[in-house]
C-alpha cells in the first residue's frame, strides 16, 4: 500500500509548474539565415516537460509557440503573439504569487543589448534589419522575478547573443510597479547557450535531425546528471554536467562555452533520481592478444570492474565521471571522461 502511494505521488503531474516554449526557425525579412534547429529544440524541450520522468507538467500548463505553427508566407510569430504568452503571468503576478515554478525555453536567432550586458532578446519572425522586432525575454524574466510571481524561474535560451549597435532591446509594455519584497527569495537558473557577444550553434545529429548543440546538452544533462547524496538533481549539478558534456554534442563545430547563472546557496532541485544514468563507452584494445585483463577504476581509484577481455573491442555502461582503465600487469592505461569519450583506445 505504501509503495502504491509513493508510486502514485511520483506520477502526479507538477500542477504548480508552468512553461512557455518558443521556437523560431525562419526570419525571411531580416537577412538572417534560416535555422533548422529551434522548432525541433522547442519540441524536444516540450516533450521533456511533459515526460513524467522529466518536468512532468500537465499539458494545460505549457504554452508553446513555434514558427512551424504558421504558414511560411505569414512570417509569424510577431513579438505580440509571443509576448501574449507572458501576459497572464504578468496580469496575475501584479497581485502576487502565481505558481511554484516557471520554465521559459526560447530558441531562434537572438541578440544582446549593446548597453546592458545581461539583457538578451529573441528576434521575432518578422524582424527586419532596420526594424529588429524582438521579444525582450530577459526583461520579462526579471519582471517575474522582481514580483516573485513564481518561487523558481528556469530560463533556457538557445540563441546567439551577438551585439549589433543598431539593435537595442526595448523594454516590454508591462505595468511598472515596485515589485515584491519576496523577490530575493526567488530561486533562478538562467542558462544561455553562449556568453554575451557570442554565436550559438546548431548542427545535424546522428538521427539526421538538426538541433541546437546547447539544447541537446541541456536535455541530456536533465536525463543523465547524477543526484547529490539526497537524491536531488540540482541546478549546480546540471550546470557542471552541461559544461562538461558540451563538447560531446558539438561534433566538429567550434562552440563557445555557455553562460549559466544561478545562486548556489538557493539552488533549484530540478528533479529527484536515485542515481545517474549510465552512458555507453567503447574500449578498443590495441594491440589485442586475447590474454589481456582489463581493470576499471573510478575517479577515486577504486576498482569497479576487472575481467579478461574477450574481444578487441568492449562496451561499457558508465555513469558520468572520470575513470581509469588499465591492462593488468602492463603499463597500458588510459584516463577518460564520461561523457566526452565515447570511444577510447588502451
Amino acid at each position: 500500500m505504501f509503495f502504491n502511494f509513493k508510486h502514485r505521488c511520483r506520477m502526479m503531474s507538477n500542477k504548480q509548474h508552468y512553461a512557455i516554449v518558443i521556437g523560431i526557425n525562419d526570419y525571411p525579412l531580416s537577412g538572417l539565415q534560416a535555422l533548422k534547429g529551434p522548432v525541433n529544440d522547442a519540441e524536444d524541450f516540450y516533450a521533456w516537460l511533459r515526460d513524467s520522468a522529466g518536468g512532468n507538467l500537465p499539458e494545460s500548463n505549457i504554452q508553446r509557440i513555434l514558427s512551424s505553427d504558421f504558414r511560411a508566407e505569414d512570417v509569424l510569430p510577431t513579438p505580440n503573439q509571443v509576448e501574449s504568452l507572458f501576459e497572464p503571468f504578468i496580469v496575475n503576478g501584479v497581485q502576487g504569487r502565481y505558481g511554484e515554478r516557471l520554465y521559459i525555453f526560447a530558441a531562434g536567432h537572438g541578440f544582446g543589448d549593446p548597453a546592458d550586458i545581461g539583457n538578451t532578446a529573441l528576434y521575432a519572425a518578422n524582424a527586419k534589419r532596420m526594424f529588429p522586432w524582438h521579444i525582450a525575454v530577459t526583461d520579462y524574466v526579471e519582471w517575474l522575478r522582481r514580483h516573485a510571481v513564481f518561487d523558481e524561474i528556469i530560463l533556457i535560451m538557445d540563441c546567439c547573443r551577438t551585439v549589433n549597435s543598431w539593435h537595442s532591446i526595448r523594454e516590454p509594455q508591462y505595468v511598472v510597479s515596485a515589485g515584491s519584497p519576496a523577490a530575493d527569495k526567488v530561486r533562478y537558473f538562467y542558462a544561455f547557450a553562449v556568453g554575451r557577444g557570442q554565436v550559438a550553434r546548431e548542427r545535424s545529429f546522428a538521427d539526421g535531425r538538426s538541433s541546437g548543440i546547447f539544447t541537446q546538452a541541456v536535455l541530456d544533462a536533465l536525463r543523465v546528471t547524477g543526484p547529490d547524496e539526497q537524491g536531488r538533481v540540482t541546478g549546480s549539478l546540471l550546470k557542471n554536467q552541461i559544461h562538461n558534456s558540451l563538447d560531446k554534442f558539438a561534433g566538429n563545430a567550434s562552440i563557445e562555452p555557455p553562460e549559466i547563472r544561478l545562486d548556489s546557496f538557493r539552488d533549484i532541485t530540478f528533479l529527484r533520481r536515485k542515481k545517474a544514468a549510465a552512458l555507453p563507452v567503447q574500449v578498443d584494445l590495441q594491440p589485442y592478444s586475447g590474454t589481456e585483463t582489463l581493470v576499471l577504476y573510478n575517479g577515486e581509484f577504486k576498482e569497479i570492474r576487472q575481467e579478461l577481455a574477450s574481444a578487441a573491442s568492449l562496451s561499457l555502461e558508465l555513469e558520468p565521471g572520470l575513470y581509469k582503465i588499465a591492462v593488468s600487469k602492463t603499463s597500458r592505461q588510459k584516463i577518460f571522461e564520461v561523457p566526452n569519450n565515447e570511444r577510447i583506445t588502451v
Partner: protein
Amino acid sequence: MSESQSDSKVMLRVNASDTLTEVFLVDNRFQLITAGVGSVEAAVAPGLYKARFRVGQVQSDSLVEVPAGTETKIFVGSAVQFATPVPLPQTMTWQQKHEEAARDLSKSLPLKKGSGSQLFLFLRGLTEEASRPWLGVSVHNLHGTLLAEAAQGTCDTENGYCGLHLELDPGIYRLRVEEEVGEIYEMFVITLAGWQTQLFALAEDAWLPGVQAIRAALPSAAVLTTEIGKGFDPDSTTARQTELLRIGLMSGRKILTKTGLQNLLAESPLDPISTLFAAHLLLRQENTNVQALAAALLDSMCSILSGYPDLSALLLHSQSENRTKSVFPTPPMLQASWQLIMLAVEKDQAEIPVDSLNGQIQQGAALNSALWLLHRLS
C-alpha cells in the same frame, strides 16, 4: 589506527601557461573544487581530476591523475589556443607567413608623415575571400586629413596580408574602414613618443548593417605597443599578455590578480597598452586587495600616457569629487574610457565641447562595441 583523511591528501597545484588564463579544477563528479587565474591549489584525495583553462570565450580541458603516496602534484596546462588578429604562435589564427611578414614589415623603413612615434598596421585574412584585407582602410589625422591608405603599404594577395608602417608625430589618429562607398566607421589609435603602436585586424564580414563585403574588422582589432626599433616580436611574452588582457576586457572576464598585476608592473619599461587594459580591468573587478598596486599602475601610466584621453578618463574616476571640470575635445581609444567620460559629463565633472570631434561622437554617432570606441561617419 587508520590514516586520517587529511593525512592522505595531496597538494595539487594546477598552473596555466600564463598568469592571465583562468583555471577551474573539478573532481571526478564534475563538482567545482576551486577556480582562479594563472593557477589554483587544493588539498585533494588521490584520484582523477579535470582542469579547465579558459581565455575569453575559449577553453580547453585536461584530465589530471593524482597518485597516492605523494605530497605534491604539479600539473602545467598547455596554452589555450584563442583567436586573435595578432599572428602569435599557439593561437587558433596563427599563420607562419603572417608572423614572418609582420615581424619583417614592422621593422621596415616607415613612410614619413611626422616624427617621434610610429604606427604599424598589419591587416590579414585567413580565407581566400579575405585575401585583400587592406581594402577601404586608411589612416587620418584628428582633423580627418588622409595620411595614408593601407594599400600604400606592402600588400600580398596570395598570402592575404598587408603591412603599412608610418612615422608620425605622437598623438591620436583615426583609422577608418570604408566597408562600401559612403559606409565608413573609424576607431582612434594613439601613438606615443619613442613607441611603435601596432594595430592588427582580421578581414571578416562587414560590420555595418546592410553591407555585404569582407573588410578589416575594427571591433576585434588588437593593439600592441613596443619601443621603436624592436618591431613585432611574435615570441614576446608582453605581446601575448597584452592580448590576454584585451580578450579578458572584451569578454568581461575578471582575470587580473595581484600576481598578474605585479608581473605587469615589474616590466621595464611598462607597456602602455597593457597598463591601459589592466586599469580598466581593475575598475571592473573592484578588487580591494590590489589598491596599492592599482595606485602604482596609475602613477606609472601618468608618465607614459599623460595628456591622452584614456588616461584622463581613468584619472577622472580615481580622483576625489572636488576638482576642476575636465574638458574632452578628443576621443579615447577604449569604449570603457568613453563611458567614464560620459559618466563624468552626466555628473557635471567633465565637459565635451559641442563643436569638437567628441561633440560629434556624443551626438549619436558612437557605435556600441565591447572594446574600442567606434565612430560611424555620416
